């Protein structure tokens, strides 16, 4: 087919002509309209729906500040600490601001992502047909955790060093290949210059590239299927005469304005933290990280940064005695699958067989390996949500009222695990963490049963919306 360029009138503005020239060669206007300008989003979004845009904003902030930090940072075990604490924080004009934006941005990113995920949980955003959007999101969350972990080594302070030491040694707990694997990750027998250099490479190029690709996939999938909403109503089922959902509105300018307002509020809080509390009482930047890395001395109290502590608590809770409780849990779960599901008998046998293998493994391998496994599973289990949730409605609004308490108990258990992960361990705290670990996994693993129980409220065909 011959190339045909749309003819504009001779007196058309130069900008329109330029855009037409580009649009004939690259789908610029189409991309804008598909992804935002003419992207029809449900009109009943509430404040929970701001965090996707805010996450995007923080991603850009992290990339921009990161680019400028790399201009002054030295990924060398002898120079790294001084290049951050002296060069960037003191010598480079406004370097401290860029650094605090980056370090505060990391915590802000996690706050936003946790709220973004809570939204998904409350309104069933991960339910069919949005499973892939959710899976891309889980992958983004994993990348973010990797990015945070690798980045945390770079200032080469005491917490950087010993945090990396502990996490890399986690891999050492894997039976048979563990010790060689952690050696391979470190590139040396201890966390050293080789480790710092490769973590730097991961932090500034490898993970960000993957992250950007995943964010693009997340958004393309979202804009293909269409956003969910607080009512969990599929707006595409009620179309208007123009073929667009009656309950939707083009994102621009309606949601552009909403998002700009959200961004203003966020930047207000974000700036307040950067200027008045960049260390956030030791939660965003830990005190021990202002001491250069010393391979001969672990700080007396070491804890990960706050956003990792719930998973870290689960790791710590897995003692050799707790493994017995886990064995009972696995056996009970296998019995539940066997007697209380309508799965084909082959699958039931597979489940029972898997439970037997797991229980044998509990007795063969060390508890520390299972701590690592549970920590990994506690994050990965999020990926199972679209299939674990069997509720006939998506949104919490139309679920039985007692479901809210289930979510609250889960939320309390999660926050408690996070709190305990910051505290030094003792017997009582370990026991509380063990109870919370059971609640955490119970919430997800028992979801196929409890999420379908109770009296559900009728879901309206149109969204709930009051014009203001």
């Amino acid at each position, binding site marked *: 087919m011959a190339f045909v360029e749309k003819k504009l009138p001779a007196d058309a503005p130069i900008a329109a002509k330029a855009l037409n020239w580009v649009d004939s060669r690259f789908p610029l206007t189409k991309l804008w309209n598909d992804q935002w300008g003419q992207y029809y989003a449900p009109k009943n979004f509430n404040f929970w729906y701001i965090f996707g845009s805010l996450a995007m904003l923080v991603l850009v902030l992290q990339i921009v500040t990161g680019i400028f930090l790399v201009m002054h940072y030295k990924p060398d075990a002898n120079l790294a600490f001084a290049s951050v604490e002296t060069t960037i924080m003191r010598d480079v004009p406004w370097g401290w601001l860029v650094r605090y934006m980056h370090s505060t941005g990391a915590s802000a990113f996690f706050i936003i992502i946790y709220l973004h995920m809570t939204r998904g949980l409350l309104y069933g955003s991960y339910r069919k047909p949005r499973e892939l959007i959710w899976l891309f999101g889980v992958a983004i969350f994993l990348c973010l955790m990797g990015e945070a972990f690798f980045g945390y080594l770079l200032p080469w302070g005491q917490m950087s060093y010993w945090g990396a030491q502990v996490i890399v040694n986690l891999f050492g707990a894997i039976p048979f290949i563990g010790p060689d694997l952690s050696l391979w*990750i470190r590139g040396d*027998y201890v966390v050293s210059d080789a480790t710092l250099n490769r973590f730097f490479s991961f932090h500034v190029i490898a993970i960000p590239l993957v992250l950007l690709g995943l964010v693009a996939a997340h958004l393309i999938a979202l804009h293909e299927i269409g956003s969910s909403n607080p009512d969990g109503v599929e707006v595409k089922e009620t179309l208007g005469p123009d073929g667009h959902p009656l309950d939707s509105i083009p994102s621009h300018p309606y949601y552009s304005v909403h998002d700009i307002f959200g961004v203003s509020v966020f930047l207000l809080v974000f700036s307040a933290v950067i200027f008045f509390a960049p260390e956030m009482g030791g939660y965003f930047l830990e005190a021990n990280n202002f001491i250069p890395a010393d391979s001969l*001395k672990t700080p007396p109290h070491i804890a990960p940064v706050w956003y990792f502590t719930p998973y870290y608590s689960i790791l710590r809770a897995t003692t050799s005695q707790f493994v017995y409780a886990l064995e009972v849990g696995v056996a009970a779960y296998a019995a539940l699958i066997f007697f209380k599901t309508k799965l084909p008998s082959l699958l039931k046998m597979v489940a029972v067989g898997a439970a037997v293998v797991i229980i044998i493994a509990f007795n063969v391998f060390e508890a520390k390996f299972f701590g690592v496994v549970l920590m990994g599973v506690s994050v990965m289990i999020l990926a199972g949500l679209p299939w674990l949730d069997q509720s006939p409605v998506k949104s919490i609004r139309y679920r039985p009222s007692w479901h809210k308490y289930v979510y609250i108990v889960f939320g309390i258990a999660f926050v408690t695990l996070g709190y305990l992960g910051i505290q030094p361990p003792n017997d009582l705290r370990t026991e509380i963490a063990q109870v919370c670990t059971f609640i955490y996994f119970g919430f997800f693993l028992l979801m196929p049963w409890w999420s379908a129980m109770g009296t559900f409220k009728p879901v309206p065909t149109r969204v709930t919306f009051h014009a203001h």
Partner: protein
Amino acid sequence: MSIEKQVDPGRRGLLVATCAAGGVAGLATAGAFVSTFQPSERAKAAGAPVEADIADLKPGEMKIVEWRGKPVWILKRTPEMMESLNKTEDKVADPKSLKEYSMPMPEYCKNQHRSRVEHKEILVTVGICTHLGCSPGKKFEPGPQASLPDDWQGGFLCPCHGSTFDLAARVYKNKPAPDNLDIPPHMYLSDTKILIGKDEKGEA
């Protein structure tokens, strides 16, 4: 017209062979990238034995020397400290040091005090917790104190996950750490000089 009818089996065969050959080359290249992650020759060579002077070490004192990037503790135990090992004997997970962590237990240290018989009061051990690699802290004072049991006999406490070790660096039962701390091969060059990383049988 169906697509199958147009397939030329000869060309399809060549296509598969080309893909297979390309795949092998791709895997081999990936292997090279994976290998770059291994310790460099320089890192491998940096494991030389180190000498420690303990002339100034008083009973009850500990000094730390660096060997292979890791802290090695040299603790001169008092008679009371040695006596405490009898009390912890049934509280530790592996009193006879039957399991090993990252290096074999030297034969000459397979005893209750986990040290060489000619200087049995001197404990030489790698101060890296067998759980996740933190360096435990000194808690030599016996008796009840924060994060420790009331019948504490003196020993070491790992700050990361609360594992405790007695004064022969043996791990207490039901703690996250599975094994006793490593005892490196070592030998006495004189009464006050220890060589760490090498013994009569050669270098570790």
